[in-house]
């Protein structure tokens, strides 16, 4: 999908005042954080697994071409087809071609963030195909005509009342007339509605969490079983995956599986991990007749050669957004594209352009929780800082901020001047704030003091207090 046009600040402001969204976000983030913490505490090897995952990914990235070629050869040997898409448009074109050759009318889909990235549903629908998302969360947002707001829990921004209303509207014509109030009823109704589609589908499209070079297998990691029904019951199975998802061996995949479910949903394992290798064999009773993998580059190979290479280790677990105070306050839609939170703030400018997503790298407190919980140790705050630096270099940073940064640099390079200025400033603020003990307005910082007071300084700078104490502990 296209990056949204309105500004981040505007969307964030709307999100903060959306009480239903705030209620939905309240349900979500705490649960993910708590469950993950329990799983990590129960696994002494977690840190060693992160180290190992880091090394395996770095090894693969250094030899990405060779591993992809090896993977491709294995898929081909098993009777599958590998397609290479340099851009999102190429990926759309390839998938439309496969669907056309298969005379496809109905297309079921398992959850795939790459398909969101390449805006696949819009392209398929424009070509006249009926597209049905089968992951419950994806199905809900498809009915709502919204993008996902979380990479693991796409409908996390919806309350049960909103889901019930959507089902009223879309299921009533199918004969489901009861207004639902319980989550269990909603899950059951969606199960019944979606079931017929799996058996009618011509093409089933899924993502690929990992691609295994050793065997030519693609892996999906799921809880619902919809991905398996999607890929087993359709005539043609198409896997969409980023080129960075390849791992060398079956054993390497296990290292990542141990990290993924714990980091994503706080589960030890998901209900299902499925390895798909080629189409139905000659004497098989079920399975698709064709198996295609579309490897999507879309900016990844460029990232490989620059300062953002480490982002290619990402396994799309969502832990960074679950632990992000900004994401928890505004939800995923405010980020304006398919990838939200810290990983999205890095990926979106790199895929859609530094200028179209100017605000994202700046909407971060650099508190570092994302890096601390990242299962593959991506230094997200450093990558966001690097994006800010590049924005500054290329003149994208707005003039007032550039001026302020330059002014600050003048002082920062001259320690004496800096100390003089802070001594003067602190004394002044102390004087003005003495009566209340706080300042409710600051020149040039009205935005900051609009919603909070600045506690009045005590009158001396840290340096002054330190030298008075001569370094002695209190």
């Amino acid at each position, binding site marked *: 999908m296209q990056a949204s046009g309105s500004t981040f600040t505007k969307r964030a402001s709307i999100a903060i005042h959306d009480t239903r969204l705030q209620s939905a976000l309240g349900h979500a983030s705490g649960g993910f954080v708590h469950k993950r913490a329990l799983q990590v505490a129960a696994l002494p090897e977690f840190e060693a697994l992160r*180290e190992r995952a880091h090394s395996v990914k770095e090894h693969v990235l250094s030899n990405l071409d060779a591993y992809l070629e090896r993977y491709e050869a294995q898929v081909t040997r098993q009777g599958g087809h590998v397609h290479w898409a340099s851009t999102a448009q190429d990926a759309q074109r390839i998938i439309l071609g496969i669907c056309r050759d298969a005379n496809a009318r109905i297309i079921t889909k398992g959850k795939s963030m790459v398909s969101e990235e390449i805006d696949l549903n819009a392209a398929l629908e424009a070509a006249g195909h009926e597209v049905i998302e089968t992951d*419950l969360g994806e199905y809900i947002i498809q009915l709502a005509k919204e993008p996902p707001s979380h990479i693991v829990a796409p409908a996390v921004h919806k309350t049960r009342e909103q889901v019930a209303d959507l089902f009223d509207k879309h299921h009533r014509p199918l004969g489901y007339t009861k207004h639902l109030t319980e989550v269990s009823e909603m899950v059951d109704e969606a*199960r019944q509605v979606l079931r017929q589609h799996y058996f009618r589908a011509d093409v089933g499209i899924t993502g690929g969490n990992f691609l295994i070079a*050793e065997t030519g297998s693609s892996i999906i990691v799921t*809880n619902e079983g919809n991905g*398996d029904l999607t890929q087993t019951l359709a005539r043609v199975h198409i896997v969409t995956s980023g*080129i960075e998802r390849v791992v060398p061996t079956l054993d390497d995949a296990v290292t990542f599986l141990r990290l993924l479910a714990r980091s994503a949903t706080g589960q030890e394992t998901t209900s299902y991990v499925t390895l798909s290798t080629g189409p139905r064999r000659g004497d098989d009773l079920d399975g698709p007749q064709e198996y295609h993998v579309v490897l999507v580059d879309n900016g990844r190979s460029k990232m490989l050669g620059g300062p953002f290479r480490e982002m290619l280790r990402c396994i799309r677990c969502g832990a960074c957004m679950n632990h992000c105070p900004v994401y928890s306050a505004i939800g995923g839609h405010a980020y304006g594209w398919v990838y939200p939170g810290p990983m999205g703030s890095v990926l979106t400018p790199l895929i859609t352009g530094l200028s179209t997503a100017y605000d994202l790298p700046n909407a971060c407190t650099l508190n570092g929780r994302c890096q601390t919980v990242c299962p593959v140790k991506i230094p997200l705050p450093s990558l966001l800082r690097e994006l800010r630096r590049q924005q500054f270099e290329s003149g994208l940073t707005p003039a007032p901020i550039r001026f302020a940064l330059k002014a600050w640099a003048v002082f920062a390079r001259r320690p004496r001047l800096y100390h003089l200025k802070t001594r003067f400033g602190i004394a002044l603020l102390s004087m003005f704030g003495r009566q209340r003990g706080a300042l409710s307005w600051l020149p040039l910082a009205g935005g900051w003091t609009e919603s909070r007071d600045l506690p009045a300084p005590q009158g001396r700078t840290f340096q002054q207090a330190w030298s008075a104490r001569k370094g002695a502990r209190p």
Partner: protein
Amino acid sequence: MSAGTSDGRARVLADIRKSLGRSAAASVAIVPLSGNVPRPAFDGDLIERFAAKMLEKSATLARLATLGEAGAEAERYVTSVGAGRKLCVSKALVEIAWPLGLEIEHRAAVREDETSITPCFAAVAESGSIVTLSGPDTPSTLNFVPENHIVIVHASQVVRHLEDVWAQWRASGQAMPRSVNVISGPSRTADIEQTIQLGAHGPRRLHILLVAD
């Protein structure tokens, strides 16, 4: 295949190599990367761990002394969950003497099937998982289409880690099957308000028959 596909391949590989600063592919053997490969350690009996982990993941489990008891247990089970007496059973289990009261069919699953019975290739103690390989006798629809999935696990099939399953598969000399399913509990979702609900799209119930021999 269209000409565009091979162009795409050349372009993606060229872009990768450009970023890696080389002009041709470096050959990499598919061997385990050296260094420490951590596997979660645990004490105690593997079979008991497997059983406990399966229960933790919302499966149910019955312990059988011999495979011969599987038929009676299957009959008891379908009655207890209120399912019909027609069962879609993997052909690999054709030797079992099924009770006359059950209608047994060996085929892929269809929409109307309520209950399936399958063997497994191995079971994993670490996570509480069963692993199935698809094949002519073990169609993977049996694992996903019916509401109730009954799996026969022999105690001797329980291994410590998933890596041990891969080692067993490599040693067996079998070709990679179309589908390998690692199943750890019934289908579930938490997509509405993070409320865990069993039976999203796949089986609502997973019942393990753990055979002692």
